[in-house]
């Protein structure tokens, strides 16, 4: 074959490979969909984004080279064009070259990859700390420096729409599956340390705009950090399969200026004093039933079903159940401490004393259950205090 022909073929194949690469990597962006990793709003997310782009480009360039050679060969070296097969079967020089060059490329990649990793793992010098605990299927946030803590779960609108054949268009729900009842509120411009753990199974706390995810593992406390540059609302999701509602435990971070954040913390403290007062007063049966119905609908109904009929096999019925109509102490124990080896979580830390008392009162007197029992928030509070004391004595007496 003539030399010019080869050059033309190579150029044509190169153009075709570049066009195909562009079609796969860049063209889909024109549909208006997000197709690339977010740059995010922290120095970590920015460094992970640039690392991602560097490796992507290295791969794209190597790919274009390799595929151009390959398809040039496919065009030129075919029997139907009368090409006679060569007989060579190895070349030590070539093999050394394509071993050494990739090693050099890898070393070059390893340098920025190493420094990014070192930076991410250095959570020293943090100015505030938030403890994050994963539960099936909600998050608990504790501001260790502010004595604030709350539970954050999927918002009610998404929760309704996401039921099987709910008849509600997901598009009609704002931020479908990515909205929560209580967002995690954080100040900007501050190095925040996160202590991440879980209470039941493994979860993973991920907000792409912060640049990382960390597994939340029962019995372990993982560290991570972020320093958010811009105020805004950043959304994420649990990233580790954690059971049936894994897809329904989103994360929302609301980043605001220090002044706004301070105002928010004051409001939270005031609210929690209110709540304290609510726990300490005596509730009427009617109040408890009313509040209990709401707690049940938000918290219990997704497993035990709206009418307490349960969902076999994993989620037993409450209507007429031995627990919900039996001795009240055993019922309190299961709700507060969960049942090992089943999907029943321990609600002690997730729900307030008032919520637990109300839910217990409600389930013991609804769906045809007729115990007449009333469980007061104070009862739950005293059980909780005793359990806390017992735990402390055990720790002190342990060798």
């Amino acid at each position, binding site marked *: 074959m003539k030399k010019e022909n080869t050059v033309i073929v190579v150029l044509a194949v190169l153009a075709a490979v570049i066009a195909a690469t562009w079609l796969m990597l860049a063209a*889909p962006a024109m549909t208006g*969909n*997000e*197709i690339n*990793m*977010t740059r995010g709003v922290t120095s970590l*997310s920015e460094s*992970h984004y640039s690392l991602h782009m560097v*490796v992507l480009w290295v791969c794209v360039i190597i*790919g274009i080279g*390799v595929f151009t050679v*390959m398809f040039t*060969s*496919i065009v030129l070296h*075919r*029997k139907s064009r009368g*090409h*006679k*097969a*060569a*007989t060579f*079967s*190895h070349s030590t020089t070539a*093999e050394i070259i*394509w*071993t050494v060059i990739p090693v050099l490329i*890898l070393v070059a*990649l*390893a340098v920025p*990859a*190493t420094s*990014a*990793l070192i930076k*991410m793992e250095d959570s020293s010098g943090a100015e505030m700390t938030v403890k994050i605990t994963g539960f099936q299927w909600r998050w608990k946030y504790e501001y260790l420096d502010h004595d604030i803590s709350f539970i954050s779960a999927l918002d009610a609108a998404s929760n309704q729409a996401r*039921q099987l054949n709910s008849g*509600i*268009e997901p598009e009609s729900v704002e931020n*479908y*599956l*990515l909205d929560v009842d209580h967002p995690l509120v954080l100040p900007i411009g501050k190095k925040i340390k996160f202590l991440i753990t879980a209470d039941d*199974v*493994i979860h*993973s706390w*991920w907000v792409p705009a912060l640049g990382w*995810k960390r*597994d939340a*593992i*029962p019995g*372990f406390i993982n*560290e991570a950090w972020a320093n958010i540059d811009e105020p805004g609302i950043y959304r*994420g999701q649990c990233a*580790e*399969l954690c059971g*049936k509602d*894994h*897809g329904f435990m989103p994360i929302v971070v609301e980043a605001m200026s220090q002044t706004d954040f301070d105002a928010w913390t004051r409001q939270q403290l005031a609210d929690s004093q209110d709540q304290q007062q609510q726990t300490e007063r005596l509730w009427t049966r009617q109040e408890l039933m009313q509040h209990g119905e709401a707690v049940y609908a938000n918290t219990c109904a997704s497993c035990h079903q709206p009418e307490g009929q349960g969902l076999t096999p*994993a989620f037993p019925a409450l209507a007429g159940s031995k627990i919900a109509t039996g001795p009240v102490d055993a019922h309190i124990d299961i709700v507060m401490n969960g049942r090992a*080896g*089943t*999907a029943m979580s321990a609600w002690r830390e997730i729900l307030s004393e008032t919520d637990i008392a109300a839910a217990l009162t409600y389930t013991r007197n609804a769906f045809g259950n007729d115990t007449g029992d009333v469980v007061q928030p104070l009862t739950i509070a005293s059980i909780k205090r005793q359990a806390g004391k017992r735990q402390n004595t055990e720790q002190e007496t342990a060798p």
Partner: protein
Amino acid sequence: MSDITHTDLDHAADAHDDHDHKPKGFLNRWLFTTNHKDIGTLYLILSLTAFMVGGFMAMIIRAELFMPGLQLVEPDFFNQMTTMHALIMVFGAVMPAWVGFANWLIPMMVGAPDMALPRMNNWSFWILPFAFTMLLSTLFMDSGGPAAGWTLYPPLVLQTGTSLAFVVFAIHMMGISSIMGSINIIATILNMRAPGMTLLRMPMFVWTWLITAFLLIAVMPVLAGAVTMLLTDHFFSTNFFNAAGGGDPVMFQHIFWFFGHPEVYILILPAFGVISEILPTFSRKPLFGYGSMVYATGTIAFLSFIVWAHHMFTVGMPLQGELFFMYATMLISVPTGVKVFNWISTMWKGSMTFETPMLFAIGFVVLFTIGGFSGLMLAITAADFQYHDTYFVVAHFHYVLVPGSIFALMAATYYWLPKFTGNMYSEKWGKIHFWLSTIFVNVLFFPQHYLGLAGMPRRIPDYSPQFADFNMISSIGGFAFGATQLIFVGVILHCVFRSKVKATGQVWEGARGLEWTLPSPPPYHSWTTPPVVTHNLVRHAE
């Protein structure tokens, strides 16, 4: 045939009359068989069946993900589908398919009359249908099938009901089968090679399987141990993985991935072998760099033991650990790159024709390389804190497994089926199968890269509407890819039962190696007298 001495030819001629030696009766022939070809056939039938079952589960998954909102199945059943799809595809489709080809080919390729341990071979196979029946039966149990993902991470998996015991025992049985199969393969390759078939004359498929078999023996007991600990944690109150009882949930992940990473090479190394057989045949040129191919395979196998924690970068390892596993993982791209470069050099200046096996082999090289690139990206630990557990990972491993392992299996099917059956398949339908598969596998999996980068986690049954477009495209690709595989089944059935075009012994003009010197189909007992292998017979230079 000039490579075989005259005495051997005489014996080969005797062997032609061996058709009569097949056992009489259906049960005798298939249930009690000790013949490597029949057992190979059984494995391949099981594998194709499992491929269809696992594929059907994938269709359910893609149908639910077709648009946002839950339309078809409850989340818990969705999780059972993703879990079972993976278990069935890994343990039921890909692994038995490779063992099936090993059974058929290794004795014919090394000049052995059968596998070294034929009765054990029977047992290795017949355990499997029972294991899979047991595994699938969990879907019909009150407590439902396993729904914690194929990785079976505790504590979540311990929330499975009694069906967990059936899953664990099924995995035990598959492990026993794999170990026995591997012992058989190693014993056959090391002891039963014909005179002159030195180790460095062996076909690449034999080499890759030898190394795969060692990997299997090394890691299947590890998996068995891990799932046994799950069993005792669940049913006998042990606390191996329960933090509240002094156990460690992360330890399971370390043990699982010590099995799991070599496992992914168990799925892909025989594919490397097949591609190294097919490309030289249709390029009419020897395999480039045979020696470095063997060493690259060995290196990959070694490295596969020291990279496991890259599956779990986000669990909170010490920095030094993360750095080690990052460097080791990046290193894998070097021997893998050598393989790709060698394949392209094999094609370079060849005299290529593009029959269906060659098309699938070329498709493999291109698409596996794309899967390799995303693998290199995932190796970069800091960036992995974004990629991890997203659809980017789903796209990555499906690229290396579907247009990787499964394309290689299809290439192997088209390449050797005429040898096995004596009939040619329909080239036209084979090519239609290739082109539709290649187009739709990309429509199916490429958009999943975008989904992952844009922030969609894996293993969720429902998603935010911002992910709707690419999920719909991916689902359409999935349905079309699934339907295309019915063509594959049709082509195979046609070739086996209906095809009128007889295959020659040589089948492919450029094919070299012992199996092609046998007639098509080969006699029931081949190489009852070992052939003498000379230099000319092997496709690669020494």
